[in-house]
């Protein structure tokens, strides 16, 4: 069941000047959250941010009653959300959307770029728990943009590409040698900029493996009321907020 719930600002962990992890706390319990689920946050102290902002759930701690988000600053909402102070309340609607499918996976490749890597902590943890072998492939422009790798290392192998070659292999994720070597994975999960996900989806077809992508989209509500957030699929326009954000890429007509 979806909830609308007040949280209190707990803390930031600033990863670099435009990326931060925001942790919120409640005295109440936190609802069950599945990997891939997202939330809609009302940005406090920002009456000029008219609508809520969707963010994937990065992590949740049911003992501490905390929930956290990995946020990249791209506009006024994400900027203001990075300026909370002690005592600020954040109203959150969650859990929203569907989640990644895990059954039948044995060896998974998780390909992410930018703020797209947010769902991979919960996904990685659940995959690991189910005994799935995990490899993360993280793409970034430069070394400083490769984030959260310590978290990922706890869950599996971590491969990196940077465009400027400052870390890992040089180039885009799609150029990584993991794709040219014998392909050992039976599932790809991907999350990040659209062009990256499309390229990965093509590789998945080539390799003959299943691929799930978590999409971003302009959303007005996040819970199926407005029909603004569609993506074209072979079965017609689908709502990203209720029928996604996770789609099997073979269904997408993007």
């Amino acid at each position, binding site marked *: 069941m979806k*909830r609308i719930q007040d949280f209190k600002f707990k803390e930031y962990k600033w990863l670099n000047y435009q990326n931060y992890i925001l942790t919120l706390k409640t005295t109440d319990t936190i609802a069950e959250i599945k990997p891939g689920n997202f939330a809609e946050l009302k940005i406090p102290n920002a009456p000029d941010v008219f*609508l809520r902002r969707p963010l994937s759930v990065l992590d949740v701690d049911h003992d501490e009653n905390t929930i956290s988000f990995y946020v990249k600053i791209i506009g006024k909402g994400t900027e203001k959300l990075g300026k909370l102070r002690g005592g600020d309340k954040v109203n959150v609607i969650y859990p929203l959307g569907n989640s990644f499918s895990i059954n039948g996976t044995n060896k998974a490749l998780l390909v992410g770029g930018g703020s797209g890597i947010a769902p991979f902590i919960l996904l990685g943890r659940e995959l690991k728990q189910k005994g799935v072998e995990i490899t993360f492939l993280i793409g970034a422009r430069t070394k400083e943009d490769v984030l959260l790798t310590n978290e990922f290392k706890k869950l599996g192998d971590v491969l990196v590409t940077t465009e400027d070659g400052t870390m890992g292999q040089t180039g885009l994720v799609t150029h990584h040698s993991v794709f040219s070597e014998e392909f050992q994975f039976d599932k790809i999960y991907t999350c990040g900029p659209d062009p990256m996900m499309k390229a990965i989806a093509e590789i998945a077809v080539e390799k003959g493996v299943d691929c799930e992508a978590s999409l971003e989209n302009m959303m007005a509500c996040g819970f199926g009321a407005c029909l*603004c957030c*569609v993506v074209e699929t072979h079965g017609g326009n689908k709502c990203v907020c209720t029928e996604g954000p996770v789609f099997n890429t073979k269904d997408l007509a993007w």
Partner: protein
Amino acid sequence: MVDFGIQIKDLKLKNPVTTASGTFGFGEEFTDFMDLNKLGGIFVKGLTLKHREGNPYPRMAETPSGMLNAVGLQNKGVDYFINTIYPNIKDFDTEIIPNVNGSTIEDYVEVTEKLNEIEGIHSIELNISCPNVKEGGMAFGVSCPSAIAVTEAVRKAYDKTLIVKLSPNVTDITEIAKGVESVGADAVSLVNTFLAMAIDANTRKPLLSTITGGLSGPAIKPIALRMVWQVFNAVQIPVIGMCGIMNATDAIEFILAGSTVIQIGTANFIDPQISVKIIEGIELYCKQQNVDAVSDLIGAMVTK
């Protein structure tokens, strides 16, 4: 106890607070957040004769104190509504009011005829003001003769309360309101979204796939309020007011300007519990101002 009841012919509402078409899905999307039984009514998502895919992505952009949408009446068609959706929502103790759309007068009539058969439905809202479809929609609502023509045809096909939803994109909304009144509309609802657009200066591209879309939200509340006031003074039938109602004070302003019923739209996206809060807020206002019946406030703006 404040008297909250409203009646427009066959349509009896337990209170004047309803939700606007296209902003409340079919109600079910909100059951996790609130008790639908508290609402006066739910104007459900626009229906057409056949399944419609709506417009391509992107369909939404945020603007100062408002938003643009270009959904374009995506829906699975009136039969799907009647057979699959309505059975799930018909037992809520609130009025379900379908929003009727078409590309031609025949379309409108055919959808209406189907809805006329449904016993639990006491009213329809005729949408002649959708700015997001290429054919029909707003084209009917911005010319008086065509507004009259479609209303007249639908009136013949419908026995119960007929509400006609007007477009703000006109020179004189009272003319259209009087026109549809003259051919039997039982109420007018106003207004639908304003035709508008937004551009990304960096990419130089429009933010909507359709270039133009419909503007809703508090940005345009002052224009809508003026239209409600004008129409209230021009027609005898009840006016259903909306546009940018975000809280009880906004709702009361619309009632004072002449609304018998109000609809809450975009605000549902920001706070899915807002409609219930607004009901409570109106009740509080009435108590504080010693108003016995909310109907005493309709058009009660003090102008001297």
